[in-house]
């Protein structure tokens, strides 16, 4: 009993710490213009490749731009778009998953086989192909990531809806004359949302990582917009003289992804949600 209590406290501790870090990051993304000491895209060749100083806390890059300010602004892009991807993929998955699970029959078959075909293509490769055909750019990358991601939510949701459908209270609701829409809104969606929140936490890390990978390849965020993956791409040429240029943004990606993964893991352990 005591050990169980201590275990719970321990997992809570992780949840609390991770939530705090994420809250801090959230504040940074909101207040970046006020925290950042310099303009993230202001080029100043006279101050290029400077070591850390009071004016430039983390030094400057090859164009004399403040690395610290760029990292702060980069959080906006990474977190903001990761959240957009998560919300869009989730909504799409929720709608399709519920339709598939609730309606069943050939609709279900059609949607799920379509999902199988999509899942046969490695997700990042699909995004690369999508960007290749529709052209490079942040918009295409974000859309591509949403298009590969919804299918995972849809499958999980469909499974949950299928098992929920057999529950007595759904039958009771049906018998008492509730419309399909009311059943969805009042009984099914509230039941699947907690699991989705946990899944989403894990997916946020995935989205941030892949968004930065695409920017690193030069396909996503275009210069001079500050983004962590793009910063590594720009900093890699200075690996011998100024390794800090590529080390800091990478550290940020890792920190954020670890935080999301740890949080998701702890939440899923606590609420007994299975990972996909």
């Amino acid at each position, binding site marked *: 009993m005591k050990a169980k209590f201590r275990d719970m406290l321990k997992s809570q501790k992780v949840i609390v710490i991770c939530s705090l870090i994420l809250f801090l990051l959230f504040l940074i993304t909101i207040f970046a213009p006020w925290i950042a000491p310099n303009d993230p895209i202001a080029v100043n060749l006279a101050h290029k490749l400077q070591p850390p100083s009071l004016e430039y806390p983390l030094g400057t890059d090859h164009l004399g731009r403040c690395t610290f300010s760029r990292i702060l602004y980069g959080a906006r892009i990474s977190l903001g778009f990761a959240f957009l991807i998560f919300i869009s993929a989730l909504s799409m998955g929720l709608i399709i998953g519920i339709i598939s699970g609730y309606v069943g029959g050939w609709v279900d078959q059609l949607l799920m086989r379509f999902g199988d075909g999509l899942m046969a293509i490695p997700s990042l490769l699909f995004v690369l192909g999508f960007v*290749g055909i529709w052209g490079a750019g942040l918009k295409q990358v974000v859309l591509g990531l949403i298009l590969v991601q919804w299918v995972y939510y849809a499958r999980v949701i469909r499974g949950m809806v299928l098992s929920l459908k057999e529950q007595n209270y759904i039958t009771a609701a049906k018998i008492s004359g509730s419309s399909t829409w009311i059943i969805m809104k009042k009984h099914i969606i509230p039941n699947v949302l907690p699991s989705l929140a946990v899944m989403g936490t894990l997916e946020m890390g995935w989205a941030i990582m892949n968004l930065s990978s695409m920017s690193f390849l030069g396909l996503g965020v275009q210069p001079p917009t500050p983004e962590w993956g793009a910063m*590594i791409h720009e900093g890699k040429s200075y690996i011998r003289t100024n390794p800090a240029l590529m080390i800091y943004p990478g550290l940020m990606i890792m920190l954020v992804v670890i935080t999301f993964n740890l949080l998701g893991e702890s939440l899923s352990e606590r609420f007994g949600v299975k990972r996909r």
Partner: protein
Amino acid sequence: MGTYVLKRIMTIIPIFLIATLLTFGMINLSPVDPAEAYFTAAHIQATDEMLEQKRHEFGLDQPLLIQYVNALIKICQFDFGISYVTNKPVWEEITSRMPATIQLTIGSLLIAILVSIPIGFLAGMKKNTGIDHFSRFLSFIGASIPSFWLGYLFIFFFSVKLDLFPVEGTGTWKHLILPSLTLAFPLIALYTRLLRASVLENLQESYVLFARTRGIHEKVIMGKHVLRIAISPMITGLGMNLGNLMTGAIIVEAVFSWPGFGRYFIDAIFNRDVPVIQGYVLLAAGLFLISNLIVDLIQMYIDPRISRKGRQYQ
């Protein structure tokens, strides 16, 4: 058993068909006119007449359904069309660059297996000890570190600072180490984690209890029974990950200037070389499906509970 294998093979075909339909749809929905893309990629200023002729050559003036069926027939003959940029068949381009990529993926798979089996197995056997904590740490870091960044960190420490390995290029085994290690890192994380969880789960099974009550030595139980079955999710992971490995290789090749297919693919994306993109995506899908099939068959062979042979004893 024969019918099971046959059934399993049959499930692949519709999925692959849907994947081809998806890529076909993606290309046809895009605002890019293949004929125009062809001339842009080849750096030719095209007249309307030339465009019209190219469209006819590509069969773009035919109904969509016929276009799709024609494309499908060609795909079945490994004909993915001709690259807009190099004017060579895509299949030739892919196969000529594949050996370097395959070398890289096999190297990383070897590293991943050699590292993760001992760590994951020991971590599962000795839960909450030092090795277990290490394995959890490793799987967290491995799952969260961006591979392109890890590649540059390796270059920075091992090539620039310590001068142990060459920065980029190919040739000797030394060139292979850093790229393979970079590509292997997320796999190590995943496999260690899978194996640990699976060992822990299997230790709760009644066959372990039965073996213990029979007085069989712990080492035999672990080595002969538990490891054999616990490794099964890891093999599934291996099959599921082949696709990710193919995309991971694209990024790692970009970091280390590895002369595999990945770099060519990135160029194709920038040039909008549609046949190359389509060819590689479909190839990856096909490989993914086939590797999953093979994994299922291997599992059937390894795990006596799945195959017929084991069932006879039950």
